[in-house]
C-alpha cells in the first residue's frame, strides 16, 4: 500500500468510515507493534500501547495535517503514547536502573547461546530515545528523516542516537 492509498483511507476515516480505518489498522499493526515490542520490551504492554495509538489515530484522523507520511504520523502517535505509558509505569525505569547497576558491577555480559536474545537484552539497557531510533531505522527500515519525523527530533540527533546506541550495544555484547 502506498502513502497515497493511506491518505485516502485516512481521509475516509475522518469522514467516519470504519472499513477504511480497519484497512489502515491491518496494514500498519504489525510494524507498529513490532516497534513498540522492541521499544518497551514487553509484548502485552506494547500491544496495549498499540491499541491506544490506533484509538488516538481514529479520534485524530480528521486533524491529520498531511505534512508527513501516514505511517510516520502513526509512529509519532505511538512514540508519544509509549513515552506517556512509560512515565506512568515507572517500573521500567527501575528495571533500567537495576540493569545499569548490574552492567557497572559485572562488565560485559557473557554472550548467551541465542544471539537475538542477547541483542534484545542489551537493547533494553539503552536509553529510550536511542532504543527508539535504532528500532525505527534498523528494525522498521525507516530512513533517518522518517525516524526524525516520527520521534519529533532533528535528523542529526537521530544519527547521534543510532551511533551511540550501536556503540553501547557492541560494548554490552563484548563485540568491540
Amino acid at each position, binding site marked *: 500500500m502506498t502513502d497515497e492509498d493511506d491518505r485516502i483511507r485516512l481521509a475516509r476515516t475522518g469522514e467516519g468510515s470504519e472499513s477504511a480505518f*480497519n484497512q489502515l*489498522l*491491518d496494514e500498519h*499493526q*504489525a*510494524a507498529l*507493534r*513490532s516497534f513498540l*515490542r*522492541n521499544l518497551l520490551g514487553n*509484548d502485552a504492554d506494547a*500491544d496495549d500501547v*498499540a*491499541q491506544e495509538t*490506533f*484509538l488516538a489515530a*481514529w479520534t485524530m484522523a480528521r486533524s491529520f495535517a498531511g505534512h508527513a507520511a501516514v505511517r510516520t504520523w502513526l509512529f509519532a502517535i505511538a512514540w508519544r503514547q509509549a513515552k506517556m505509558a512509560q512515565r506512568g509505569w515507572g517500573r521500567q525505569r527501575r528495571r533500567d536502573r537495576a540493569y545499569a547497576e548490574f552492567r557497572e558491577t559485572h562488565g560485559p555480559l557473557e554472550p548467551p547461546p541465542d*544471539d*537475538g*536474545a542477547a*541483542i*534484545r537484552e542489551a*537493547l533494553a539497557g539503552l536509553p529510550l530515545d536511542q532504543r527508539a531510533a*535504532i*528500532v525505527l531505522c*534498523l*528494525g522498521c527500515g525507516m530512513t533517518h528523516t522518517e525516524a526524525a519525523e516520527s520521534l519529533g527530533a532533528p535528523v542529526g540527533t537521530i544519527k547521534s542516537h543510532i551511533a551511540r546506541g*550501536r556503540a553501547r*550495544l*557492541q560494548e554490552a555484547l563484548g*563485540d568491540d
Partner: protein
Amino acid sequence: MDDFDARIAAALDSRSPPERDPLFRLDYLRRREERAFRARLLWATALFLGLALALSVCHALFGSDALEITVILVCGAGAALFGLVVIPVMPSILARLRFR
C-alpha cells in the same frame, strides 16, 4: 548495513507479530466500544444529575405542587438516559447476536 546492523535487524524482526491479526483488531474494537460507552454513560449521568438538581431546586421553591412535574421530568430524564446510553449500542449488540 554491516554485519552488526544485520544482526540487530534480525533480532528485532524476531519479535514481529503476524502480518494479519484479527484478534488484535477485535481487542481494539472492544476497547473503542467500551470507551465510547463510558463516555456516553458519563454524559448521561451528568445530564441526570443536572436535571435532578434542577428539580430539587424547583421543588424547594414551589413546594409540593411541583411533585407531578418532578415525577414527569424524572421519567423523562430516565428515558433520555436510556436513549443516550443503550440505543446507540443496540445495532452492534444485535449484530453480534445475529438477530439483524
